[in-house]
Every structure is written in C-alpha cells, then in structure tokens.
C-alpha cells in the first residue's frame, strides 16, 4: 500500500506545485500555509486531479478514502441516522463517537458545522481503508474535538494515512513529516529526524526545541514528556 509521486507538477496560472516522493505504509503529516497546495496534493494522491507533468502511482490501494475539509460536501442523508447508514457503518458506535447519542432522527442541517464534522470523521474512521487522505481534518473542531481526533489518529494503522493540515494546536503522532515550501513538496523524513528540519512547527514544539528537548514525536504528549526529561 503506497503512493508514489514522480516528477509531478501542477500549474494554475502563476501558481505551481511540484512533488516527488513516496507515501508508504504509516501515518504522514503534510503541512504548509493556506493556499500552498495541500488540497491539490490530496486530490492528486486520490487520482482526482491530473498533473500537467509526471505521474502518480498507487500500488496495492484497494479501499481509498478522501475526506474533504467541508463535511457538507460528503452529506447525502436527510438526518443523522441516514447519513451514518449511507457510509455503511453501524449507527450506535458512530453516534457515541460523534457525541450525538440519541440524535439519530435529527435533521443534518440542524447540526452545527462542528457536530457535522465530528459525525463525518467518525464515519470515515469507522471504515476500512488502504489509503486514507484527510484534508484539513481539524477544521471546525473545538479544542476537545481536536485533541480527541489527534488521539484517534495516533493509533498506528495497518495502512497509509496522510493528514494535510495547517492546524498547530494539536497534532497526532505520525511516522513521517512533509512540508510544502515555496511551491515544492519537501520530504523531511522519519518524524524524529524531521522535527529539527521542520520550518513551521507548532509553538509548543518550537519552545521544546529552544529548551533543548528532543521529543520522540510531535504530539503534545510527546513534547510534554520530552520537556519533563529535559527539566530533569
């Protein structure tokens, strides 16, 4: 299960994105500022966007899932229960995971965007996947929601998961870091070696680095543990 980008380039007028690299089994985090090309890259990996140059090769990818930033785009049910059924997953665990217990008959448009996002993510993460592409999964979530999602994404999957985000407040444990810099996808490498090379880390990680801590991963928990070790 892996996706390879070979000499890929996408152009839209003056704007361009070039990418080379292999997304193998494990969790990958792709960061970059708004408008840098994260969503375009997600569409490329999903095979929805076609590059002007180069090729995208997916190997042993049977079940492909792409989660778009706005949960409304995925919705096809009139109410919460119908929406869960449309994903082909069991209702009760999803309602519990999304914090919507007892609201199965509620109309989807009565939910806030945060609730709709929680419902969408719970449905996506309940499915089986070979390649999961999460485009801005933290959008519309509150702090507890972000932390819960990070904890869930930190569990090691037997598949390829790529998270595209500009969020900085809470991040999951990942295996490899990538960054989009000036229109180019840069593979920073395995997470431990990649942390010092990361040009735009979250504030908590930057502070830890300044204090000489060497966290094993990028989650708040890992950084807290590293700081405790440094402080002695």
């Amino acid at each position, binding site marked *: 299960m892996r996706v390879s980008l070979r000499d890929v380039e996408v152009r839209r007028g003056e704007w361009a994105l070039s990418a080379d690299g292999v997304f193998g089994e494990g969790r990958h985090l792709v960061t970059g500022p708004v408008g840098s090309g994260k969503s375009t890259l997600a569409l490329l990996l999903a095979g929805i966007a076609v590059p002007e140059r180069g090729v995208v090769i997916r190997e042993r990818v049977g079940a492909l899932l792409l989660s778009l930033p706005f949960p*409304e785009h*995925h919705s096809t049910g009139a109410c919460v229960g119908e929406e869960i059924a449309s994903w082909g997953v069991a209702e009760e665990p999803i309602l519990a995971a999304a914090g919507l217990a007892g609201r199965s008959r509620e109309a989807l448009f009565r939910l806030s965007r945060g609730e709709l996002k929680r419902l969408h993510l719970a449905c996506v993460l309940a499915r089986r996947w070979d390649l999961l592409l999460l485009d801005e999964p933290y959008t519309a979530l509150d702090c507890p929601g972000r932390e819960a999602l990070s904890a869930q994404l930190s569990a090691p999957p037997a598949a390829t998961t790529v998270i595209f985000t500009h969020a900085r407040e809470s991040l999951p444990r990942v295996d490899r870091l990538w960054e989009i810099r000036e229109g180019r996808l840069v593979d920073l490498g395995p997470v431990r070696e990649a942390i010092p090379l990361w040009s735009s880390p979250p504030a908590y990680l930057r502070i830890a680095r300044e204090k000489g801590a060497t966290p094993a991963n990028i989650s708040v928990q890992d950084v807290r543990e590293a700081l405790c070790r440094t402080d002695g």
Partner: protein
Amino acid sequence: MQDGRLKILSATVLSVVAFLSVAGAVAVLAWWLLFTPRHRGIRNPRAVLFFLAILCATAVVVQVTAGGGVTYLFRMTVVVLLAAWYHGARKSGELLEVAVSLFGTRAGFDLGLLAEMAARSLDLLLADLGMMQIAWQMKGTPRRLETLTPALALLLHRQLQQSGEQASLLALRGYTGGGSLCPALAFPRRDLPAACSVLLAVAITLAVPL
C-alpha cells in the same frame, strides 16, 4: 475583451440579438468564434452541458407541441455559449466597478454589490457541486433522487447561512446603502473590433427578418 463595461454590454445585447432571430444567432455565433477564446474560455464545461441537455429536452417539447423547436435550440445554445463566455471572462469586482461607473455611488454601488454577491454565490455553488461529486465518488454514493435531494437541501441551507453571515458583516461594517469607489476602467483599442462587431450583429438582425 478587456473593458468590463463593453463585456457586460456585449453579453446583454448579443443575448437579445441571438434570441430574436436565427440570423442574429448566426451573427452572434460568428462573433463568439472570432472574439472569444471559444471552448477554452468556458470555466465550467459540465454546467454548460447540463444547460444544453435541459435545452434539448425543452426543444423536443416545443417541436412536438408548437413547432420551431430546432430554431429555438439553436438560438438558445448560442445564448448559453455567450453566457459561458461572460462567466469565464468576468473578473472579480468588475460588476461593482461597471455599476458604479454607470449609475453612481448610491444606486450603482448597491446594484453592483448585489451583482458581485450573486456572482460570488454562483461561483461558490459551482465549487460546492464539484466537491460534492468528488465526495460522492469517494463514498460510492449512487446519484439517485433520494440522495440528491437532502444533499442539495443542505447545500441550499449552507448558501442561506453564508448570505446571513455576509449580511451581518455588511451591517457590522456600517453599510446602510451606497458606498465610495473609484472605478478603474479602461477602453483598450484592441477591444474596438469586437465592439464594432456587436453593432454589426444588431444590424444583421434588423436587416434579415428570420
């Protein structure tokens, strides 16, 4: 065509000309072929195909019930092509500038702002529809009426929410009506042949009674 005023004027006049007669539609089609980037200028070919499919169905009904369906289809196809060109050629803020330059900073500003917001909503709607198609493809959702209806209702609800947010934003910024804007519109010489050809299309329509 660069001048925003000429663009909107040409689109309006040529649409009427194309609808009025077959001769006018032929003249407008020639104008579209000569002075626009043709199919390359169409920003959303799927939307154009969708409208053409509806036109075909309507033309069949017109042909069966009253006759003249073929000419109706031809004239309306030209109008749709013209609309697709204008949609692709329109620049953000252009409608506001044109309206202010034509009708002043009170009525013109309000009219332009309304037009800009409507155009932006249309762009957002088209982008949303594109994203929904991708999402459904990923989800493996069949495109049936029972899945389309709640999805479109949710989309409509989102549009209404966005309109409400936009209205609140305008109110917060103190908007009560009118506004100040200095339109920066120019008439480049290279727009002259296209502009003159619009007059030619009008003349052809008036001269050839078809």
